[in-house]
């Protein structure tokens, strides 16, 4: 199954569970307070996911390594390489 397929299955499953419990078709009736709590659940989950995303990306952005050493090492390597290649006869 494709990832899209997995997502659709998951959404259909959760969606129908939520609809069944929160929208109260005649056959299935939960006490009113529970139904009222369940009703805005999808929106809450979306907002929660949004906050999680922002926090995660923000954290990862802040901890993104800056490779100063690698850059300096590269500079040295480049000088060594140019010298050696010149010695070996390369015409740049």
């Amino acid at each position: 199954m494709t990832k899209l397929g997995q997502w659709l299955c998951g959404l259909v499953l959760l969606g129908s569970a939520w609809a069944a419990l929160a929208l109260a078709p005649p056959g299935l009736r939960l006490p009113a307070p529970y139904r009222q709590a369940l009703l805005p659940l999808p929106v809450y989950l979306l907002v929660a996911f949004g906050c999680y995303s922002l926090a995660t990306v923000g954290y990862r952005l802040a901890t993104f390594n800056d490779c100063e050493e690698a850059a300096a090492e590269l500079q040295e390597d480049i000088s060594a390489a140019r010298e050696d290649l010149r010695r070996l006869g390369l015409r740049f």
Partner: protein
Amino acid sequence: MAAGSSDKFSVLLPTYNERENLPLVVWLLVRTFHQSGNNFEIIIIDDGSPDGTEEIAKQLEKIYGSDKIVMRETISVLFSSGTAYIHGMKHATGNFIVIMDADLSHHVSLYLIKQKEGNFDIVSGTRYKGNGGVYGWDLKRKLISRGANFITQVLLRPGASDLTGSFRLYRKEVLQKLMEKCVSKGYVFQMEMIVRARQLGYTIGEVPISFVDRVYGESKLGGNEIVSFLKGLLTLFATT
């Protein structure tokens, strides 16, 4: 099988206008492999560069020997990475293939140790874990990178931290199998390789790499690139 003394590493270097960087990359690779004592060859696939890249590659071939430097030219306009690898692999005689960029953005280091450790089918360089990272990126560029990677992780759950990287080591037969299956172009192609590899059950090891960006000043990441990335991502989402 873990890498041993009978193994040979073929490094594929697709180039376009890399006259300046190519000799440096080759010199660094030669030094690295001499230090590790592994058998290797470097295959240069040039896209008809107008700046004399081919000429310098031929010089390098004379200096290092044509068993070590193999120069193959592809004359086509704006080839994608996929085409370059297909061409390169035809000439590869090693049993491990290393794919990397020729513009010195990949600090040349060895994946061999990692491969030996876990006997992986693929070893992928990651900028996002361990002491991997970047140099020369401003905040905006980093944000786009992390944001795009986050969306990719949520949608594709690929099991690898860096999908758009192009510094990787593959077993030759694994790369051949993946090339048959992958259809995308550009860096989406790199993403597709990892996703398909997971599906086929190949083992993937990760190694932190430092990406030193020396070309960023010239090529800004524009709206076009972002749109095409999203298109590619959604295509992978719907088809894999």
